[in-house]
């Protein structure tokens, strides 16, 4: 039997019925109904029943505590036993309609003393009450209280979980919308800058071209910041999925190299990529690419003019490691611990030459973890840093076809 549960009491009747069934059997009642007290409406409302159909439950209806005999148990804190309900005005018509002779109503209070409701038990025959029976019914009432409390706690937890999930979704939608709204005017900026640069009106002078290039660079940084925020909001909400497949390490490194090379050139940094034949890692190609690009772009910006950044890879048993090594100023030991923490860069004085949202490394670490890998860093002040991505080899993957998506609009995320 399904009952409509009241809006403020969204307790599934199915969860309450086992306790009712037990109470019915122990008390040898023929039918039982659980009335729950709705605090906002101030009424007792049927929440679950056993041995009764919906029509009969509707006949019992809802009751205002203190207004009638039915609700007296709760309002007067006492158990009501009517041995001959047929000849009691307030129960007679109901007793005849439902076919019970005796009725017993036990008030239910939660463990912290709040009005919970009533357990109503109905008997087809007149029955005498023994002391033992009174005790048993008390136990039954406690059982029902327990079931109601549990069902409420579960409903509450479910509601909290749904709220959290909804908030997460709203946040992602908000970020996606912000991204869209920011990209649209950025398209105009990017477009007009480039049109000016190529001289769609008049060819720019050398000085104008230099200034336009600066605007162009800033616009690209802004796009990366937006990308980072979107990616991070999705990671936080657990909305990122990974397509793990065998990826040739050399190909991932080659792509990262080609993306970061222009940045390295403009910073006067030498970018080296070691050969890494025959190594296949189990990774999401796009995310592996993004990690390497992030690490290499960070290293380029960090080590400054005249520095060298090296991307290398080696296989080690069932795992492979990618190292991004720079000979920059290094990272102080007290900063190494929290360098992967999101927003750290925003919260602390920036490391010299280390721009960006502060989300790039946090995103890389999350991506690494999502591919069953790990991101670590070692640094020597004055000598340089090594960021290492440890990732499983592709040996264990059933799909032997190496796949990597072609170079798309990849961009460094710093």
């Amino acid at each position: 039997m399904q009952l409509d549960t009241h809006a403020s009491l969204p307790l599934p009747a199915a969860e309450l019925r086992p306790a009712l069934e037990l109470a019915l059997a122990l008390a040898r009642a023929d039918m039982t109904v659980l009335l729950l007290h709705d605090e906002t409406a101030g009424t007792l409302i049927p929440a679950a029943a056993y041995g009764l159909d919906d029509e009969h439950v509707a006949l019992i209806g809802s009751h205002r505590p203190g207004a009638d005999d039915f609700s007296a148990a709760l309002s007067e804190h006492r158990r009501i036993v009517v041995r001959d309900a047929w000849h009691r005005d307030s129960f007679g018509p109901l007793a005849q309609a439902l076919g019970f002779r005796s009725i017993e109503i036990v008030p239910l209070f939660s463990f912290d003393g709040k009005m919970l409701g009533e357990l109503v038990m109905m008997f087809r025959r007149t029955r005498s009450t023994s002391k033992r029976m009174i005790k048993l019914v008390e136990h039954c009432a406690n059982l029902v209280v327990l079931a109601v409390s549990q069902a409420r706690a579960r409903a509450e937890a479910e509601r909290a979980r749904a709220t959290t999930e909804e908030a997460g979704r709203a946040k992602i939608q908000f970020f996606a919308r912000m991204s869209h709204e920011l990209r649209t005017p950025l398209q105009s900026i990017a477009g007009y800058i480039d049109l000016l640069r190529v001289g769609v009106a008049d060819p720019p002078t050398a000085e104008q071209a230099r200034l336009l290039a600066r605007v162009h660079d800033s616009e690209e940084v802004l796009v990366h910041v937006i990308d980072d925020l979107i990616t991070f909001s999705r990671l936080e909400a657990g909305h990122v999925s990974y397509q793990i497949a065998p990826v040739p390490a050399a190909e991932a490194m080659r792509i990262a190299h080609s993306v970061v090379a222009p940045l390295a050139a403009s910073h006067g940094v030498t970018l080296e990529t070691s050969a890494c034949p025959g190594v296949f890692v189990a990774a999401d190609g796009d995310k592996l690419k993004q990690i390497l690009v992030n690490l290499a772009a960070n290293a380029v910006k960090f080590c400054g003019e005249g520095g060298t950044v090296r991307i290398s890879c080696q296989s080690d048993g069932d795992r492979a490691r990618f190292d991004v090594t720079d000979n920059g100023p290094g990272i102080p030991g007290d900063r190494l611990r929290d360098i992967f923490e999101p927003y750290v860069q925003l919260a602390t004085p920036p490391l010299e030459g280390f721009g960006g949202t502060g989300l790039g490394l946090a995103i890389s670490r999350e991506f690494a973890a999502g591919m069953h890998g790990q991101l670590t860093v070692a640094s020597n002040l004055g000598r340089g840093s090594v960021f290492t991505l440890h990732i499983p080899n592709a040996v264990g993957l059933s799909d032997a076809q190496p796949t990597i998506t072609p170079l798309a609009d990849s961009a460094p995320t710093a």
Partner: protein
Amino acid sequence: MSLPLRHTDLSRQSFLSATNRLPPVVLVVDDHEESRTIARLVLERAGFRVAEASTGLEGLRLAGLLRPAAVLLDLIMPGLDGWELARQLHANPATSRAAIIALTALATAEDHDRALLAGCDAVLTKPVRPIRIVETVQHFVGPAAAAIRI
């Protein structure tokens, strides 16, 4: 009736008419005027003829009329949106041969996949360097007229 075709260079037009080889038409459908202007300027510079539509419905009408070689479309537009426009262009034999290129400020893979499923041949994310718009159009329809490029 005047078509929103703009020719940057009349002598070029007559030259092309003489050789009986008009440059291909690219239809730009975007409710954002600046985006249309940039696409038009850069595509005209590359030698294409460009028509503009500010709504999906107008885009659909012009596509049927002009039979463009490529349609550059925004995804989020009031009324007939880019996904639906791509579907209808793809389904209509008169326009199904046009390369459909989405140019959108939506950046997620899901949105891009939906666009590809709707019949787009390529998706570009805003902001895109104008040269990428030209390269993408050329990838599908070939160069407009290499000989007379500025």
